[in-house]
């Protein structure tokens, strides 16, 4: 059995900013070895784990992106570093965060700005722009230039902590919660019989271009696919009508980016096996790996399952362990029931 809490902790606390996903991949490889699952890396760095089915009826791809949002050094300014974001960071939450600068050496630093009482008179203290922020590693200009380069990546530094109700908070739960869920699936599949070959792909650079999903779906050329990502759980500062919540199970998406046959089959299995789930309407593209996978090669029946989290794209994302386990259970059951009927064109399938 996979030690889910510990695996999620190390996955959350390690760093893997888009294009530099080595550390989380190493953690995943260690777990895959324990589960006796074979894996390889492709030319762009995707980690592809394969578990053959009894009959090899078809190929099913499960994609979880393994990269995280971060920062990148853009300039030196005396004793601090200027930066911009890699992926969609909320600028309002950066001040006062601890970071690791991945230069020639790893340097711990903080994101600072000039404190209000040191502001030149007359300048506004309220507005906060990225230009006002900088990274301070406590070294002088000469030492900084010896250790850091323009383009050095920067990750946030945050301890993974336990809250009440089996909820956990940390950084990069987008998308390490899904990485953990994919490991849960391989764990479940050691006990569940399945005919299809399963390709678990830990994709790179989802937060930037979706490179990993584009290339891996072309390479694997699956007959059907599911992307696992995180979704929004309702927060107290959301509209009261917001539908999806954490601890209410995986979110099954519906809409043009989603194959109806696969989605309906997934919902039926969730109902039959009493796995709590929620449905989310996605009227356009989903902003996940599912977007690229669906239009790969000649088109691939694709679906999306999201793990609801709070405070997405902040270093205090919150997830319920129950939702991760349920996602693992739902998709592994789905794998065991896969058949060509599910893949029929949309009208036939419904």
């Amino acid at each position: 059995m996979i030690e889910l809490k510990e695996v999620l902790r190390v996955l959350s606390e390690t760093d893997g900013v888009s294009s530099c996903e080595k550390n989380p991949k190493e953690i995943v490889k260690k777990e895959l070895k324990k589960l006796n699952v074979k894996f390889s890396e492709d030319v762009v760095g995707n980690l592809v784990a394969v578990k053959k089915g009894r009959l090899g009826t078809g190929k099913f791809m499960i994609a979880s992106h393994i990269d995280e949002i971060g920062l990148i050094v853009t300039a030196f300014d005396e004793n601090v570093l200027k930066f911009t974001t890699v992926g969609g960071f909320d600028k309002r939450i950066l001040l006062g965060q601890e970071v690791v600068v991945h230069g020639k050496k790893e340097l711990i630093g903080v994101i600072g700005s000039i404190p209000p009482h040191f502001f030149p008179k007359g300048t506004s203290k309220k507005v906060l722009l990225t230009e006002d922020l900088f990274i301070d590693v406590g070294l002088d200009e000469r030492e900084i230039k010896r250790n850091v380069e323009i383009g050095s990546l920067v990750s946030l530094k945050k301890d993974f902590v336990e809250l009440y109700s089996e909820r956990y908070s940390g950084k990069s739960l987008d998308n390490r919660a899904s990485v953990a869920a994919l490991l849960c699936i391989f764990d479940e599949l050691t006990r569940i019989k399945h005919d299809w070959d399963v390709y678990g792909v830990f994709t790179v650079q989802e937060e930037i271009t979706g490179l990993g999903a584009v290339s891996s779906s072309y390479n694997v050329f699956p007959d059907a696919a599911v992307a696992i990502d995180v979704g929004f759980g309702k927060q107290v500062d959301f509209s009261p009508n917001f539908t999806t919540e954490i601890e209410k199970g995986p979110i099954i998406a519906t809409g043009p980016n989603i194959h109806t046959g696969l989605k309906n089959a997934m919902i039926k299995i969730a109902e039959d096996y009493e796995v709590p789930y929620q449905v989310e309407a996605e009227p356009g593209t989903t902003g996940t790996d599912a977007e690229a996978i669906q239009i790969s090669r000649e088109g691939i029946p694709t679906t999306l399952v999201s793990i609801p989290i709070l405070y997405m794209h902040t270093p205090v994302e919150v997830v319920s362990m129950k939702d991760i386990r349920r996602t693992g259970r739902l998709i592994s059951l789905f794998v065991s029931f896969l058949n060509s009927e599910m893949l029929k064109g949309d009208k036939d399938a419904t």
Partner: protein
Amino acid sequence: MLLEKLSNLDGASGDEARVREFIQKRIRKYADSMEIDALGNLICFKKGRVKKPIVLIAAHMDEVGFMVTEKRQNGTLGFSKVGGIDSRVILAKTLRFGKNGTKGVIGAKPVHLLKKEEVTKIPGIDEMYIDVGAKSHKDFKDIEVGDYVYFDTCFEKISAKVVKGKAFDDRAGCSLIMDLFKEKFRMPLYGVFSTQEEIGLRGAMVIGNRLRPDYVIILEGTGAGDFPSKKDNSKSPFLGKGPALTVMDKSMIADKKLLELIIKIAKRKGIPYQLKQPGIGGTDAGRIQISRKGVKCAVIAVPARYIHSPVCLMNLSDYGNTLKLAKFVLKRLGDSGK
């Protein structure tokens, strides 16, 4: 390192007991007497071989933090600041409860869902909330209104000389007094660890009324100002350039003769020092100076960047030089006999 333990302890204004107990336990063998007054100030005394001058060194134990003000039906907690914290450093931080270490986070709306006008706007503290993972108010367990909450920051050395942590303002000063008490001086010496500095220098108020020192030296962790892009504005105090001496801040003008003596000793002993930018901040000296018939006060401070935020940076050589300078100043005052 004392500073490491002191920085990791949680103690905002009114919640200084943990810090006080830590100090009491360790300073006991170096003090001739110890007392805790009605405001929670810890007053330590070291007898001298001579009667005069009576010297008082002080540092405040409290730090800035938060307090739970509301337990809401929806499972979140409303909170207020204890002391001055820039609202821009609060969002998306992990917190811990002082009394039992329970963790919580200050949530933020995901950037994907922000309205255009919200992108550069920091919400008011009344719009923020603490999430401890409670599904409703029924899950709050032992959380009570009035509980103190702190940034969940750990002390760490990040390079050969620089450390990061919270509350260097003013655990640096507490640590200095504890180190100074290990020394021997000719004159009687009070070491005061004060309370409630961050909400208006309140602990120091009664210290000035109660004790009758001839000289007072406040030991502080003060904000460093050595940031780039400040154009013509002064950057003092710098990290790594020695103790910062106050000429004037918002709370007082330092005693000129005492300040001159400190500078003279620094020069003679070859200890680097810098003058703090006038007009910024305030310390317990502001209260003690105007107590009774007036007291000669000065401030010697270790500069730290980003005080009153989740994580500050301090240069250990500044700490060492501040300790050295304070020690020589005390020796000199003791030898002066008046």
